[in-house]
């Protein structure tokens, strides 16, 4: 049971490591540290500095020392989330969040990360549910390792998931809590976003979501 997730988590690391890629630039050479906590600490430092590849390597090193280390699993999930180029690697991020939660790492940022991963994988109801759960427990949520990711992003997760599942009206209601759109389903004259009139209500709502995504997605 453990072998497959670990292998899955290793795939993107090996690929990226082999390419020498990394947001921080240059090959990543994690320095040997003594404890999982030390690796996790340095991993978050690199994550906050935009070096998701280096962060990923540190979280993996921590997991090599303790495969059940909850904070390392959560950090690995976030590092994978921002870099995943495929459903396979995004699923690895989701598995890592699930594993962290299963090992008692119940901080809001873990569930928030899982909400984003689920949205990216097309798991609409799960994404919306996770976003709502975090906001219910922590309305002023801010991810401490990336302060631009807040409760607004979770509302966007929910609105995008609702739109994708066909509930345009609920998506608009959620989006309106971020920024009022003025769109009225019964008034075609209100189907305007950014000065552009849309021929359908759904088109206007989706344009409004796209605008919020551009302006607020952290």
């Amino acid at each position, binding site marked *: 049971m453990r072998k497959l997730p670990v292998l899955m988590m290793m795939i993107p690391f090996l690929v*990226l490591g082999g390419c020498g*890629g990394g*947001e921080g630039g240059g090959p990543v050479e994690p320095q040997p540290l003594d404890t999982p906590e030390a690796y996790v600490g340095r991993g978050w430092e690199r994550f906050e500095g935009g070096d998701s590849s280096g962060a990923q390597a540190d979280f993996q090193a921590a997991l090599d020392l303790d495969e059940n280390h909850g904070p390392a699993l959560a950090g690995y999930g976030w590092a994978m*989330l*921002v*870099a*995943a*180029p*495929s*459903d396979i690697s*995004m699923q690895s991020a989701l598995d890592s969040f699930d594993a962290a939660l299963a090992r008692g790492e119940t901080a809001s940022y873990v569930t928030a*990360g899982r909400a*984003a991963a689920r*949205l*990216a994988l*097309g798991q609409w109801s799960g994404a919306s549910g996770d976003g709502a759960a975090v906001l219910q427990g922590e309305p002023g949520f801010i991810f401490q390792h*990336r302060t631009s*990711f807040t409760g607004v*992003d*979770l509302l*966007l*997760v929910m609105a*995008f998931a609702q*739109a*994708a*599942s*066909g509930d*345009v009206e609920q998506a608009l209601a959620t989006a309106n809590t971020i920024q009022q759109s003025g769109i009225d389903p019964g008034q075609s004259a209100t189907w305007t976003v950014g000065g552009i009139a*849309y*021929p*359908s209500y*759904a*088109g206007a709502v*989706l*344009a409004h*979501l*796209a605008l919020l*995504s*551009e302006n607020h*997605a*952290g």
Partner: protein
Amino acid sequence: MASKAISIQAISIQAGSIQARSILMVMLALILGAGTALAARETPVPRRLAISPDMVRVAGDGPGQAAPAPQSEADKAWQNLLDEDFEGVFPGDTWTIYSSASVPYWGTWECWSGNTATHSAACAAAGPGAIGCGGLYPAYMSTWMVAGPFDLSDPDITAAELSCVLNLVSETNVDYLLMSVSTDGQNFSGLQYSFLVMGEAIQLDLTAVPNLGSVVGASQVWVGFYFTSDWSLSYGVGAEVDDVLLRVDRPTPNVPPTITLNSPDGGESWLAGSQHAITWTAADADGGPNALTVDLAYSLNGGGSWVPIAAARPNTGSYNWTLPTQGAANVLVRATVSDGEDTATDTSDGSFAIVVPGSNTLAVGNAAGDSGAQVTVVLSLDNEDTVKGVQADLVFDGTLAALTGIVASQRGVGMSAGAEMVAAGRGRVILYYSDGGSLAPGTGEIAQLTFRLQGPGGSTALTPADVLLAGPEAEDWLAQVQAGNLQVAAPQEVPSLSIAVLKNPGRTRTIQVFVTVTNGSGTAPTVSAGGNALALSAVDAGHVYMGRLHLAGSATSVTVTAQDTNAVGTGNAQVTVQLP
């Protein structure tokens, strides 16, 4: 009294020679070929005999009623009223002993034990001149051993029997034992035994007592064992009796079955002529005498009269009942279970209704318009029944139209209304009163449905399916349907497409691409992202489509293009978004 005592004493004096003669007579009988007769003993003689007025009660605390012995599982029908093995106190409170004066009478001893333990009752084992083991009973004996009265009046008693084990040696027909019963405690009738009975079980059928007939049914029955001797020969100890049993055949009373009618149990409203399950739970604690059967009946007048539904049905717990075609407001169902002897009945706790459906028709109107336009379709209901709610699916060609809304109108004003697409080409409409209101019988429009026309143009039927017409009491009214039609004119303009790219929160490399199409072909547009084809799924068939895309980490922007073609021409859209 004095002379009688003297004569008994005189006979007792010759006891030694009499005993020797007794043995001689038995031996002689065997030699002369009477062995067979001895083994089968002589046929008992019916006899009626009263306790003589000159007899005195000499022992015992009776008459008393012996406690019935525990009932045998193996012989459930028989119950013992008296079960005496003479091993306890005698005569105790069970027996009363009567005897002539100055002669021995019934007592117990260990000289012969019958079939059980050590003791038996012997006719001369107590009283004046009582004999010991091997002794000879004296002359002029007259002694009763009486128990009772016993109550045999229970109508469940079907038979009774008095039995014992008897050991007897006496002068034939002169000295004898009488096993008997009485209904007055004085006059006894039964069977007389004499000569030789060698430890045999003997019975007296109390349904055919000599001279008395059946004493089953009598409230007081005594049992009596009497022994008498005349002046002459004495062959041995006389009568010895053991294991006296008075028993009655009282079959275990039947346990009546039970039944609970579960449905209908009141409040239902069932359509006349429809089929519903009558359900019940029946049980029989003693499992008999026969397997349970159930009779079902209904009443249209609150129990005033009953009409059979089914008779002697197996106890399956359910019966599919086809209701009568006439309506009634005060209907009951009755279920009666029988185990072959007893019955039990349960009736619906409350009345229910059988309703005769009226003629109801749900009709969908027609509309026409250009592809891309919104049109309104009238939904009408002609109802003879009172209606509280309507639910219906409308089935149509999903490439040509989509159900987008509903407004309750005309007769339907006041009803809550909802509409949604439940699948491509299938929309569901719901209209209902949430405040206790209802739609009285009538004719005409109840709602206006909104359809968005789309696709290349054509015609599609709007066919109601899975129509539910509910009455105020949750009746399930029957409904006819009338389909409508949508005429979709080919689009007059090229498709209009808009693209919405949603960059997923968290600065992931994932985007969602939504494409909204107006005047489209009715099928998914062709979309590419970053030069690669992007597969789309329908969010709102014919109108909104969506796809997901993961981008390489090196990408700084992505360009999405969409294209759709209708009969007029091809529409295009393109969006470029910057990535973090």
